[in-house]
């Protein structure tokens, strides 16, 4: 791989706090190596700004290996930028060329208010999990791990859904800011396992009620969520969620 350096123009959303209106600011960066990660390019810019006595751009990030789900930039109109199946922190600068202009915004959704610049509040996701995204088993209650065999296919599909990192890209990509891919991934993860059986009906109903309460929009099956998901969580999870929801409604004991 030949490495190169580039000069870029960045248009970055700056917003002092939740109440501030916010606006785009333009920056130029030079001698950016194609070997850098996208966030390292931001590090370079921020270091320069600190040096100049200006306030650096706030952005969320932590593990920088694509698994914690903290990074969250909307890059050139796409959550996590141009590469498929990739988080912002794993996006590398060889995705760009000399002279490019890159527009960077925070996730845009009523349920994800901006805290500062590119940092948003995703605590709504935690509250959706609190509504039922778990199996009610206290520590010490468990039977032997091999007491319940689980069909390999189901375990694998459950795992694929549980791989969701809760970053919120699905919400950011959705024209209605629906959280249904996130929610369906959790419902699928637990519904596919026998351990999740006893709470199947209440879980899906309660989690959807919480999602509505948080101000997320409705799903229109456009598929934008699946297209941008850095963990490539399939939209078939939403179909499974619909089935679970229907089943819960039709067979409710209450």
């Amino acid at each position: 791989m030949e490495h190169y350096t580039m000069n870029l123009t960045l248009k970055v959303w700056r917003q002092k706090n939740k109440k501030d209106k916010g606006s785009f600011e333009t920056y130029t960066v030079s001698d950016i190596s194609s070997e850098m990660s996208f966030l390292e390019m931001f590090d370079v810019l921020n270091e320069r700004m600190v040096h100049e006595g200006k306030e650096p751009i706030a952005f969320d990030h932590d593990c920088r290996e694509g698994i914690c789900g903290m990074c969250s930039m909307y890059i050139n109109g796409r959550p996590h930028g141009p590469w498929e199946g990739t988080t912002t922190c794993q996006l590398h600068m060889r995705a760009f060329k000399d002279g490019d202009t890159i527009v960077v915004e925070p996730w845009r959704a009523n349920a994800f208010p901006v805290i500062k610049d590119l940092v948003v509040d995703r605590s709504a996701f935690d509250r959706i999990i609190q509504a039922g995204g778990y199996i009610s088993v206290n520590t010490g209650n468990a039977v032997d791990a091999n007491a319940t065999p689980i069909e390999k296919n189901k375990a694998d599909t459950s795992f694929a859904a549980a791989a969701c990192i809760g970053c919120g890209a699905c919400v950011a990509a959705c024209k209605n800011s629906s959280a249904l891919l996130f929610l369906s991934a959790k419902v699928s993860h637990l519904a596919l396992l026998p351990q999740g059986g006893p709470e199947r009906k209440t879980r899906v109903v309660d989690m959807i009620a919480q999602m509505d309460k948080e101000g997320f929009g409705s799903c229109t099956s456009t598929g934008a969520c699946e297209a941008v998901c850095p963990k490539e969580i399939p939209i078939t999870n939403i179909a499974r969620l619909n089935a679970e929801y229907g089943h819960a409604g039709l067979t409710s004991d209450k």
Partner: protein
Amino acid sequence: MFKSNIPDGSLDKKWEDYKGHVKLVNPANKRSLEVIIIGTGLAGASAAASLGEMGYKVKAFCFQDSPRRAHSIAAQGGINAAKNYQNDGDSTFRLFYDTIKGGDYRSRESNVYRLAAVSASIIDQCVAQGVPFAREYGGLLSNRSFGGVQVQRTFYAAGQTGQQLLIGAYQALERQVALGTVEMFTRHEMLEIVIIDGKTRGIIARNLVTGELERHFGHAVLLASGGYGNVFYLSTNAMGSNVTAAWKAHKQGAYFGNPCFTQIHPTCIPVTGDHQSKLTLMSESLRNDGRIWVPKEKNDPRKPGEIPEAERDYYLERRYPAFGNLVPRDVASRAAKERCDAGYGVGTSKQAVYLDFATAIERYGKTECRKHGIDNPTAEDIRHHGVEVVKEKYGNLFDMYAKITGEDPYTTPMRIYPAVHYTMGGLWVDYELMTTIPGLYAMGEANFSDHGANRLGASALMQGLADGYFVIPYTIGNYLADEIRTKAIPTSHAAFEAAEKIVSERLSQLKNINGTQSPESFHKRLGKIMWDKCGMARNEAGLKEAIEEIRALKAEFWRDVRITGNIAEFNPELDKAGRVADFIELGELMCQDALMRRESCGGHFREEMQTEDGEAKRDDANFSFVAAWEYKSDSNWELHKEQLEFEVAHPSQRSYK
């Protein structure tokens, strides 16, 4: 209280006996006992969930925006448990013995035995929570073997075991939040502990969104704040991983155990330049099939494919013909550093060596061709089939490598280099996980741990969950049973007032320096000192230099750091500055500890203490102890020694020949 409090009795009965006689707290009293937990990784989240379920009033804190983001999430390989599902001779004793030996006889027998004893329950608990571990076609759990161990005891979920375990614990935690037993404080950072009449009674935390300082009371405080690998700046840790909570506790009287014990993992994606912010691990399993080499010529400008076989130096195979590329982690790491320091490194930075799969692809390809009955296969046939085998074994790792480097490891060798991965040292704790401050506990990577001088693969996840699910729920009762008459202390108490004042004055002091250099630039400089002089190989002269350099860096930091923005707002620069200030102080203590320990053991390699063929030379006569450092004043510590007694696993020299 510097007493290990190991229960009497034979090793295999200690924990059972302890549980049978430990004090209990009745359910009604639990409701009025408050517990603060710092950190929500595997140890913190599992403890918060378990204590909440028991009825305690829990407050949990994390600096991330959600407890699910703690860095336990990034663990790849797996979690050990002595289940013996494979019928291959595993047992609690074998897991205990492997862990003690792997730690090079620098850990406490009783704690390690307990760890092994509760390991099986962890797997049961996780499966009950819905953790989707890998399974066989019969529907039962799958195992694999790890790091030199002779049994298959590692449970895993693809390369995302840490993620799945953490999500299990996170969901259990959120369930308690919903039920009201746990109150969760995200984007909060603990900046001081509050001690009243010699007991830990609360914390001062900063709300990282508003910048406000908050006072929180607790009958006990649990630190589960992770390791301190970021003292090296570059490591496989997350960007936010820090030592601040543990360090504040240390400065208030909690001894720090074995600070110099750090694990450096041999196979990570190397640094590409000064812009590098973090390092990514490539699973060690790759060394089963990859051959490590550098050019025989210094500063060779050619691409790897242009260097003929005769001009390559397979230095591990040359130096260690018996083990070759499968020498232990520390040996492999040091050998790579030696070659690069001598000028034979590859890649842009010259701080890397090749890990080459060409031989493996050819070998597998030939076997496959035979299997498929292809007579006289062409080189293309062989390669095609060989690549398929390698893809099946390591596909996800090759993909990750390609994404980061832009190079195709199927056609060109990987470039790898060692990186800081885990810290075995941490706050000293007794058998009950209590630090030397009454009412203050440390769990998971934050304590000096069960791993001695070197941690085995797949054991960190085991320890974090053991502490949180199965140890602290019992041991904390022994302390809280005597606290049932202690009413919640109002946070208007003078001790809270004083602690908050210390924090706010420190923040103002930092902010008012108004210097010229960023916190990040100081962190980078500290990391370079630590890596060069307290990294993979250490010697007396280097450590002494490092201590002087760190002291100078500290003075410069407090004279010239520049923090933009304000205190009373969301300000990552301020957060970072506070963490870097603590890392600088810790760095000095690590060097002091490494200087004191004139032996080589596990990940701690003193160049003066090695055998003729470069192996670590342990000194059991003089150093069979845990170094527990007491903070006295600035740059001044007193060493306390906890002698290690080995009643069952008798120390022997580890040999890899």
